[in-house]
């Protein structure tokens, strides 16, 4: 089995650590790798899209699972797929769309694996309707610390610990997913602008239920009366009869284009207040005040950034931090306060999104809960950012909210228990299942998971 000692970071490119990267090609090799992890343990890794240190393991093993990426069985009538966990959602879409099926949940990138989607219990623009990814997992096979393989079904403690468990209960080898039927590969999208945060929240609250997918891009650099001005994009898969004649010939065509990759060296501070401010202004002005039923490709609607490989390099050597939190309904004041603080502070963020979540998910460490979630990216080199985010954490925790572990790279460990009330349950199960701590990551060391 190939193994290299390499420096590993998350998508944010902060805090690199060195690990032995193992690339199993069979389940047997994966089991052998888990048994021979050594004293510093191992952690599964997919396509490395977690922003922080979730798929790093300093001094230990990192199991690159992307070599195990086969589709085993598609039930084209019933709408389920059995596949290896190392397969990307991109590949799944390529395979499933021609058959008239779509993945049940997709995040802002197609380049995540099914295993990663379960480990982080990812959500998409349809969370308010469909919940998180693990709600659509019918069954999975989990390679546990003893080297054995268990079949795990929803409704069991092991399932609830694994969904959102950041790979710390074991390595997901295969999963059976329930799919979503679609007639076309296009999206029918309604766009509208909101002039400020209150306008945005009112619009989302009033009409979100009409859409399967809903998200708002928010300009966090706008200040004063236009603080929180946003562009709402909401929609659903376009039905066949919504397509023009020409497109109807091949309604399920899926051919995403790719631009040249971002250069490997980008000067520090390219994305400052001025450049991002100009971008945000243009982005807001460019959006129509109101437009309905526009046909967009899947890529344009769900994964605009996937068009630029290695876009994470644009933040330069210091990398960047993603901050995503959720506060429950009824805690709108906290959301307002946080947005105003960010706007006053002038965090140059061009990828900020606000979304309403639906019901919470069963995973013990799953992030979503009914409420408002805001995600933003900030260059890690911004002076004083560490203290500023600590202050936001306090606000979020005081409102019984939480931050998203798949994006975290800097949370104060002491706040974790308050944010994730089922943490003790998780620790107990992990203690029984994996007493020697075979599954360990930089994230679990840093936060004491």
């Amino acid at each position, binding site marked *: 089995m190939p193994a290299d000692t390499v420096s590993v970071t998350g998508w*944010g490119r902060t805090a690199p*650590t060195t690990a032995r990267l193992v690339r199993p090609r069979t389940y047997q090799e994966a089991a052998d790798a888990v048994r021979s992890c050594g004293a510093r343990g191992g952690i599964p890794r997919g396509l490395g899209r977690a922003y922080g240190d979730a798929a790093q393991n300093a001094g230990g093993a990192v199991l690159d699972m992307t070599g195990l990426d086969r589709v085993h069985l598609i039930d084209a009538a019933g709408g389920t797929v059995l596949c290896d966990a190392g397969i990307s959602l991109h590949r799944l879409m390529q395979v499933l769309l021609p058959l008239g099926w779509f993945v049940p949940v997709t995040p802002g990138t197609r380049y995540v694996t099914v295993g990663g989607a379960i480990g982080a219990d990812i959500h998409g623009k349809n969370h308010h309707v469909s919940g998180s990814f693990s709600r659509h997992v019918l069954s999975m096979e989990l390679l546990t610390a003893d080297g054995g393989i268990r079949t795990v079904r929803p409704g069991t403690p092991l399932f609830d610990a694994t969904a959102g468990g950041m790979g710390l209960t074991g390595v997901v080898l295969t999963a059976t997913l329930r799919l979503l039927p679609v007639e076309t590969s296009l999206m029918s999208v309604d766009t509208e602008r909101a002039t400020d945060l209150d306008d945005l929240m009112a619009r989302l609250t009033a009409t979100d239920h009409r859409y399967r997918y809903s998200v708002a891009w928010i300009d966090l650099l706008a200040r004063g009366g236009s603080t929180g001005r946003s562009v709402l994009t909401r929609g659903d898969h376009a039905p066949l009869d919504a397509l023009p004649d020409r497109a109807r010939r091949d309604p399920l065509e899926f051919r995403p284009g790719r631009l040249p990759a971002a250069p490997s060296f980008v000067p520090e501070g390219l994305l400052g207040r001025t450049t991002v401010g100009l971008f945000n202004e243009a982005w807001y002005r460019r959006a129509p005040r109101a437009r309905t039923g526009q046909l967009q490709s899947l890529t344009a609607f769900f994964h605009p950034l996937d068009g630029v490989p290695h876009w994470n390099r644009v933040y330069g050597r210091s*990398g960047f931090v993603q901050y995503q939190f959720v506060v429950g309904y009824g805690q709108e004041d906290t959301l307002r306060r946080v947005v105003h603080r960010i706007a006053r502070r002038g965090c140059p963020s061009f990828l900020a999104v606000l979304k309403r979540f639906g019901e919470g998910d069963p995973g013990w460490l799953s992030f979503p809960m009914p409420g408002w979630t805001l995600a933003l990216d900030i260059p890690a*080199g911004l002076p004083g950012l560490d203290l500023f985010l600590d202050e936001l954490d306090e606000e979020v925790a005081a409102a019984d909210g939480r931050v998203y572990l798949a994006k975290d790279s800097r949370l*104060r460990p002491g706040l974790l228990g308050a944010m994730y009330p089922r943490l003790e349950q998780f620790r107990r199960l992990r203690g029984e299942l994996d007493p020697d701590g075979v599954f360990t990551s930089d994230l679990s060391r840093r936060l004491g998971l």
Partner: protein
Amino acid sequence: MKDAFGTPQSLLVLGGTSEIALATARRLIARRTRTVWLAGRPSPALESAAEELRALGADVRTAAFDALDPGSHETVLGKVFAEGDIDLVLLAFGVLGDQAHDERDPAAAVRVAQTNYTGAVSAGLLCAQALQAQGHGSLVVLSSVAAERARRANFIYGSSKAGLDAFAQGLGDALYGTGVHVMVVRPGFVRSRMTAGLPRAPLATTPEAVAAAVEAGLRRRAETVWVPGALRVVMSALRHAPRPLFRRLPV
């Protein structure tokens, strides 16, 4: 583990009574640091330093460490690293010596060299090995502007720091890509116990300023940090000054 901003959760100070080290420790405890090891010669000063840091909320332990006894380093440091990961090692021990006296007393001069250089080579290599095994961590080495060019007024101290500085740079290059980061810190004249009674030099700084520069350097994953930053320019000019001129400079 260090977070995205390079802030460590655990800290090992070699030279546990160093004012710069303690100022750094205070600063880091205010951020994320919870575990601190103060290694130094057992003394009431070491214990009171530990007590002071405990009051700030850290879990502080002391270890008996003597730079002049390299034979004991492996045991002492082995014990510390066996207790858990160390995110940051701050190599802060060093003595200034008394140039005028040491010129007449070679044995005393050798002690300066052994403390500042040989002791650091031994401890530095051992720490580097341990950090490499855990796959992460920073080694911060307190060098000095005196290392950049030896001056008539303190060349014994200066040459020992020059050796240390060159050693640390080489070690940093050797460890590049292993997940271990080595940062050389070159403060100018620091107003502290060590320099009490000496005439103040231009561009003097404080232990707190050095601590702030260390924290900022960790964040950037810097390899060299000058405190204050202006010294980088000043020293690069002085470094290239011709000998006859440099000899006459009042530095």
